[in-house]
């Protein structure tokens, strides 16, 4: 089996896994989900790093630099903001009611 076909298998199966996993995420967390998938898909940083560091020529390096910058913005900003949101979600428990523990 050639490489491209194998990659297609990986894509299709990962898509199914994604669909199954994500369909169980409650609407409650849909915004963090979106920022989380955004941070994860910033894995395109991997391709950008190779481009920026391959020393092909100046154009490739500059394009690579811009790509690394863009992807890093998403990696750093994406994981940070996802964590910031998830930190806010807390259970109320019986008794004091909304915000009662302030």
């Amino acid at each position, binding site marked *: 089996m050639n490489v491209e076909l194998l*990659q297609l298998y*990986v*894509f299709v199966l*990962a898509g199914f896994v*994604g*669909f199954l*996993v994500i*369909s*169980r*995420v*409650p*609407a409650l*967390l*849909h*915004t*963090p*989900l*979106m*920022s989380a*998938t955004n*941070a994860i*898909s*910033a*894995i*395109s*940083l*991997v391709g950008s*790093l190779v*481009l*920026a*560091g391959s020393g*092909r020529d100046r154009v490739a*390096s*500059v*394009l690579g*630099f811009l*790509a*690394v*910058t*863009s*992807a*890093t*913005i*998403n*990696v*750093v900003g*994406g*994981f940070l*903001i996802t964590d910031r*949101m*998830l930190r*806010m*979600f*807390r259970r*109320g*428990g019986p008794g004091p*009611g*909304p*915000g*009662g523990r302030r």
Partner: protein
Amino acid sequence: MTSRAALTDAAYLAASILFVLGLRSLTLPDRARRGMQLAAIGMLLAIAGTLLKREIVSYGWILAGLALGAGIGWPLGTRVPMTAMPQRIAISHMFGAVAATLVGVAEFWHAGRGAAVAQVQMVALGLEVLFGSLTVTGSFLAFGKLQGLLPARPLTFPGQNLLSLSLLGGGLGLFGWLVVAPAHPAAFLAMVGLGLAFGISLVLPIGGADMPVVISLLNSYAGLASAATGFAIGNEVLIIAGALDGASGFLLSLVMSRAMNRPFRNVLFGAFGAAPPPGAEAGAARPVRSITVEDAALQLAFARLVIVVPGYGLAVAQAQHQVRELAQLVERNGGTVLFAIHPVAGRMPGHMNVLLAEADVPYDRLKEMDEINPEFERADVALVIGANDVVNPAARSDRGSPISGMPILDVDRARQVIVLKRSMAPGFAGVENELFHGERTAMLFGDARETLAALVQAMRQA
């Protein structure tokens, strides 16, 4: 395989596993934080593994890019307010797509300006730059609209659909030609240009209320661009992460379009955001019953179950904290307060939940539509704040209504309904709302934030 290459591959495999586990942890709010921290570790592993690669010979540009990106990403992650989350997410789709597009263009150039590109690789590169370029401009435009840099209303002109279709057709045509004959750099650049232009024409006619669908869709496109990058440069972890992102965005688009009562094919082809159908104006003169703040406060003070229905108006008025205060007072009087969250409340999927969580409302009080609807019959008071179409009973009963079939919150089944609303203006769909004329409905006109503050004041004195 050298041991270095094996290390890189092991890092990628670990990253892929941690990504899936991270997304899976989002099923439960209590575990989500830890899970996403694992995913972040996966990302660090993948980056470290890449830096080991033998193709990388110089680190100057890499370090500069990492430093600059981290410098910009840090405030974007720590300082942006939760109300600005939709535009924050929109702009991050742009950054992701910029990276994918640039890598695609550079790959093409490196391979002898297309001369050394195999047909299969050209398919991947074409998809990468097409998805990438349209997401770049589309997301930027969505950001501009959400941020208020551009008018939020749909911008339309005659022949718009024809223009969009020709841009898309032109891009696809060039794509097809390049797959047959890759060595045409001018055609490749023209294809990128057409993709950029199509992104603009895709989002231009979309109004503010349709943004949840657009953001989800652009999320999906950004993921697909990443996955295509993985195909183009032969990197499996990119394919996996891109597929996860693409699936997530696709699923959220489905959820949103169902909740907004728009057929999914409209979403797929971007033909949404058309002018809302003209609604029946006949009921404009019909009487409504209004209520004073004091009477409303009294009803809330004696209620055993209060269900709050927050809509976009609540977010606009920035009244989350006042709602939480009101809820606290009701609970102090021995009542229970639940929040009914319609899937399209807010400007992006799940936005309302984040806003209320930030205002310190515990998440177990935030109920999804299917869960809360049977509870309305038991509710003493349903408090509707800045929501309109999502509580319109016409969606259930009136087959001729433009919003017929749209899933709604069954607010009209509560014993008493209090609607906080700025004016009697119809909602986004331009449809008269039967609920406001109901026997058990009382209107409380005014700015949501001020009215809620007055309610809190009155309840304290009651």
